[in-house]
């Protein structure tokens, strides 16, 4: 009797939790899942993520289903008499081999995606990304264009003295501008402590480590503005060094780059590492 009362209470609790989850989930603009992203790799990663997720869901439903069936039927209050079996080599072997098979099924697509991610050959543009406490520096190695990218959210918003803007904490003075449809090689490093460069829509993050240069690549499929953040704890303002990528069609990108080259040659005199050398960049 006591146990059925508990089960009843448990049912209510579970119902309450589920309805809470539902009402929250039904809210308009909540993101529940990983973004599909805007590169071929990010699509692969998303599908891999969903594949493993659904395999886990199926295993979970089967295992917990058996368990709850047992909890309901094999309870003393229903007059269950305990069986005494406690061993079976056959089932032990079975539930070792079957999971192995499932794991191999997961490892095959994962390996394929990983190999593609590591193939940074034939990039058409190389950009060095350097992490600083607490901002990013972008260096277009082939073109001599180099600038800092710093959080542009006003302190007043962070201190709750002004209403927060739409892109609160995910906006910078000078975004990284990339061409659409081109394979871009990104080299990450850092000047002080370890940072990590992450834009979810591109499908990966890469640590930026002092003394190391890591190589990654991306090929963005559609123009747009993609936002991310530093993902490795890097000190007091770790939460305040966002990343904004502005993906432009090839022609517009070239135009932008030419303008930047002109500006930077005329301004090399004030090339102070503390101040961004690019004038007039609008806030994104």
């Amino acid at each position, binding site marked *: 009797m006591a146990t059925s009362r508990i089960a009843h209470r448990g049912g209510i609790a579970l119902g309450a939790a589920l309805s809470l989850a539902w009402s929250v989930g039904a809210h308009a603009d909540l993101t529940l899942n990983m973004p599909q992203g805007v590169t071929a790799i990010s699509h692969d990663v998303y599908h891999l993520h969903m594949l493993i997720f659904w395999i886990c869901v199926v295993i979970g439903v089967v295992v917990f289903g058996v368990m709850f069936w047992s909890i309901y039927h*094999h309870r003393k209050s229903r007059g*269950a008499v*305990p*069986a005494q079996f406690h*061993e079976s080599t056959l*089932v032990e072997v079975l539930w070792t081999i079957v999971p192995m098979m499932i794991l191999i099924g997961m490892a095959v697509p*994962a390996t394929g995606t990983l190999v593609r*991610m590591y193939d940074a050959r034939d990039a058409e543009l190389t950009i060095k990304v350097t992490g600083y406490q607490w901002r990013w520096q972008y260096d277009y190695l082939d073109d001599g264009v180099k600038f800092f990218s710093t959080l542009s959210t006003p302190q007043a918003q962070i201190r709750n003295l002004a209403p927060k803007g739409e892109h609160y904490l995910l906006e910078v003075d000078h975004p990284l501008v990339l061409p659409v449809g081109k394979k871009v090689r990104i080299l990450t490093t850092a000047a002080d402590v370890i940072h990590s460069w992450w834009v979810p829509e591109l499908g990966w993050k890469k*640590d930026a480590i002092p003394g190391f240069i890591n190589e990654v690549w991306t090929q963005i499929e559609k123009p747009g503005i993609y936002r991310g953040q530093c993902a490795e704890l890097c000190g007091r303002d770790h939460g305040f060094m966002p990343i904004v990528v502005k993906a432009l069609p090839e022609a517009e990108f070239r135009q932008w780059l030419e303008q930047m080259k002109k500006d930077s040659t005329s301004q090399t005199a004030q090339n102070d590492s503390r101040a961004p050398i690019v004038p007039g960049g609008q806030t994104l």
Partner: protein
Amino acid sequence: MSTASHTTTDHDHDHDHDHGPARGLSRWLLTTNHKDIGTLYLLFSLLMFFIGGAMALVIRAELFQPGLQIVDPYFFNQMTTLHALVMIFGAVMPAFVGLANWLLPMMVGAPDMALPRMNNWSFWIMPFAFTLLLSTLFMPGGGPAGGWTLYPPLVLQTGSAFPFVILAIHMMGASSIMGAINIIATILNLRAPGMTLMKMPLFVWTWLITAFLLIAVMPVLAGTVTMLLTDKFFGTSFFNAAGGGDPVMFQHIFWFFGHPEVYIMILPAFGVISQIIPTFARKPLFGYASMVYATASIAFLSFIVWAHHMFTVGMPLAGELFFMYATMLIAVPTGVKVFNWVSTMWRGAMTFETPMLFAIAFVILFTIGGFSGLMLAIAPADFQYQDTYFVVAHFHYVLVPGAVFSIMAAAYYWLPKWTGHMYNEKLGKLHFWLSVIGVNVLFFPQHFLGLAGMPRRIPDYALQFTEFNMVSTVGAFLFGFSQLFFLYNVIQTIRGGAKATDQVWEGAEGLEWTLSSPPPYHTFTTAPEIK
């Protein structure tokens, strides 16, 4: 799987007044008795659980809404760092050592731990280590704020606190190593005649394996934090790239310790659950031998998967693949364990007292943490998950409704044996339901936050993360304050309550249940007879 005959405990009673505990403070300071030391460990762990929990509530309160409201970002980082160190080294590990102290001698039919004086020392180091660690909060420059993983170069920016943190970690490590030596010596040498290895209760087995893990990796942690110390003060450049060193090497060494450390916190939990489920299912544990082999396999694999914590540091493809495959393999023995627990319940005659409720919640919620662990093992997908709230959700699922729930289950399960009183079952169930709801409201939304792009260890966040952070914070306060019911229940049970029988639970089997409740101060001075 010990089936003990009823032992004669009357010989203890004759000398009870001679060998009883000393009075006053010196009883606790000078004790070499495994039961006293077990109690000290458990109470210390409970205190640390509340201190670490208070830090977690500071974190969750700041994250209730976007903007900086309560604390400065630097203090926020101190909270995340110390919350982890206190919970891992102060709450979870000492709780399991406390359980080991109380239970191992009683389970294997030994009179005490093999090395009682060292036992006293290994406990009494802990309060000093944690006083030192927590005192850093008041030092110039504040406490450590580089994360509990202590990654250089960031950790070298710590203020005056730095050498004190390192010394505190050394002390915790020394304590753990001594505890582990004691446990191995006890299990291997002090078993009653007839208690063969494959008759030992599973809790003894999992602790034996855990103790070997501790001995293997604690010196590695000690070594690497010493290298940090010399980098900071003696001009070495182990981890300083500018001096020819390598910051990534620290991560390799740290996680060579860190991953087995994860299993140090979960293997004893497996042992506890393997004791409790058969008792309340009134049916022997299914697949005892395979449970032992699975535990050993997990322990072995724990040494060759460390770099899955650092998939994004830029390892070569072959390295990524090796660590991905090895990590995925852990799912096999872990799965075997879960299947065995479910099979133990299958066709049993179950009742659902508080320890069983916590044990069932453990199996379900730990498995959910295992599923997210499997997802994290997939290196290309991990490039998205790494260092986000998805990871935070994952490891809290295995550590809170995993390790911590197993400790709660153990406390309710053995408290009547330890104190001689039954705890308040109604209050226990209330504590259980509030905890299980609280913990899920707290951690489940963090999966969504991580997938949506929220990095971990940030004091402020973009607006789209607001709702789930609010839900998570509500869950945190619900979970946190529910633990006061546990505290109250434990205190009331120590002070009095209905008399517990020797066996306590109808289905309980094992040597500890043949002793009176509470057991006499010295037990098994003559070895019991094992069938």
